[in-house]
């Protein structure tokens, strides 16, 4: 895969490049600002862009805004946003445009190289990768009387994994249950939340997130 890295911290940019190269990917460009990010996407049309949330000059949420802008221009451009902290608001903003190919992970996850590379591949292929932390924030925000509070603990767990972008097979393996059982849980979740059932991984996430963030 050809990757564009958007990271102003030299240490982290180097680390990411090192990791990606070791895993056999190609780093098309490493840039440090939102403008350079937009230009690099135009120039290289990478398979995926890995973007830091905080960028110069103000070091706030320039990365998120740049990612939203890139998606507006190229709706199919896969982007994986990395951050040292996650905000559910940012996740909602990133997902607002619809479509897949969006990831939002804590930088901590990068050190679990194989999982990170999986997430990278999933996003590049048009799927999603949401950090478990985002999901946790969403789930703790639910109010009493909200349909989510009617889920059983197991169903809530399955919903969380679904929201991370996992397939039913993955979830079954992670929870050491049969895929049939997972399928049943998913059906129950959709029923309880009043969502139309769907098979596509990222669409499930979108449905879940948009539903939860609309609270």
């Amino acid at each position: 895969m050809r990757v564009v890295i958007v990271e102003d911290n030299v240490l982290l940019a180097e680390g990411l490049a090192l990791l990606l190269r070791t895993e056999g990917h190609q780093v098309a460009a490493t840039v440090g600002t939102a403008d350079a990010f937009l230009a690099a996407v135009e120039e290289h049309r990478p398979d995926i862009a890995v973007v830091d949330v905080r960028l110069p000059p103000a070091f706030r949420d320039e990365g998120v805004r740049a990612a939203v802008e890139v998606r507006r221009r190229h709706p199919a451009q896969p982007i994986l946003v990395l951050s040292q902290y996650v905000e559910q608001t940012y996740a909602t903003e990133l997902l607002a445009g619809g479509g897949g190919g969006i990831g939002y992970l804590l930088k901590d996850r990068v050190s679990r190289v194989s999982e990170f590379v999986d997430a990278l591949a999933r996003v590049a292929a048009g799927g999603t990768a949401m950090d478990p932390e985002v999901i946790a924030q969403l789930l703790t925000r639910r109010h009493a009387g909200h349909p989510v509070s009617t889920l059983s603990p197991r169903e809530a767990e399955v919903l969380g994994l679904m929201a991370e972008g996992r397939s039913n097979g993955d979830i079954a393996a992670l929870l050491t249950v049969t895929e049939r059982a997972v399928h049943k849980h998913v059906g129950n979740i959709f029923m309880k939340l009043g969502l139309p059932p769907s098979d596509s991984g990222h669409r499930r996430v979108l449905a879940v997130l948009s539903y939860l963030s609309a609270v």
Partner: protein
Amino acid sequence: MKRVSGVRQRAGTAVRATGRLLLGLLLVPVCVLGLVLFALTFLSSATFIGLIILPYAVRLNRGIAGLGRRLAAGWQGRPVPAAYVPIKGGVLARARAVLGDPMTWRDIGWIASHIVTGILLAGLGLGVWGTLGFDLSLPLWWSAPLPEHAVYLAGFALDSWPRVLLTIPAHFAAVAVAGSFVLPWLATAQAALIRAILATPERILLAERVAVLTETRTAALDAHGAELRRIERDLHDGAQARLVSIAMRLGVAERLLPADPARAAQLIAEARLSTEETMTELRDIIRGMYPPILGDRGLPGAVAALAARCPVPVTATVAGVDRLPAAVEAAAYFVIAEALTNVARHSAAAGAAVHVHGDPATLTLRVSDDGRGGADEASGTGLAGIRRRVAALDGRTDLSSPPGGPTTLTVELPCG
């Protein structure tokens, strides 16, 4: 002996009281001027010109009232508090400010009343001295060509030696004793009147104080917020980023270990180096939040450590800092640290001195050096930072740095 010194003290008090009364008398023509000017401008303030002049007349009266306050403060030994509404803004705003300020009316009331009381009190006081003078001058009267050649004192004709020897000293003593009571009483009456009219009422002073405290509290919150943001940035860009990069390297090393142990070992070594850098950075950040040495050794130890770390030789004296609030201690530490950094960087000094003195109400810091002076507050962030930090605690900062030196920074921090 004791009796003599008592008499002398009494006489001294009477003389001081007379001085106050005379000063009061001197103020009378000034008061007349102030009253007339104010009356004229006030009457003409229906016109625009009058409105423009009015604040100046009020300012003059504030000055005259200020003299009155000093008169009373000098006698009573404690200041007469005054708080005025500041005169600023456009013509209308200024006129409204002075007319709305209750102190304007108190001032003018006192000025008017003092024209009467000032003359009255001083007249009574001078009467006492006049009488004593008359007694002493009596012998002269015999030689004066007065009609009946007779001199009367207190109803007695002084026409025989026994009468002269008895009446004059007795009268003199009686007036002197009475005067020693009356003169201080007159001065006290004058001072009490001034205080009653010109001292700004407690509730206005309190309101003023609340306004000042609100402002400094806002500054404190701002400084606190800026401090938190700085710490967050330092952690986010520094230690946290380093930890992430360490984790990345270790993750890659883990994957490479079976296939390329040499490369993995290199990555692990890099990660270890980065760990050490992270620890240094965390130490700096922690020192920036609350210097550990303050917790361990208190302010004396911390100041000694700062002095020892400074490249310019520093003598430090610290006294009376046993029970300081932590916030004051931390602020003192940062002020001294920042000041010594400035000394080392800019002053070209051969030596510097740090003097810390605490009493129950105030902690005073003085950092001085024998360098080239000319410290400019606008040029660096150091001094502005000190000022902000001190203001946040309601303290005072004073910098004296003439070109050619020496430079002295004095900071007072309230501890109560």
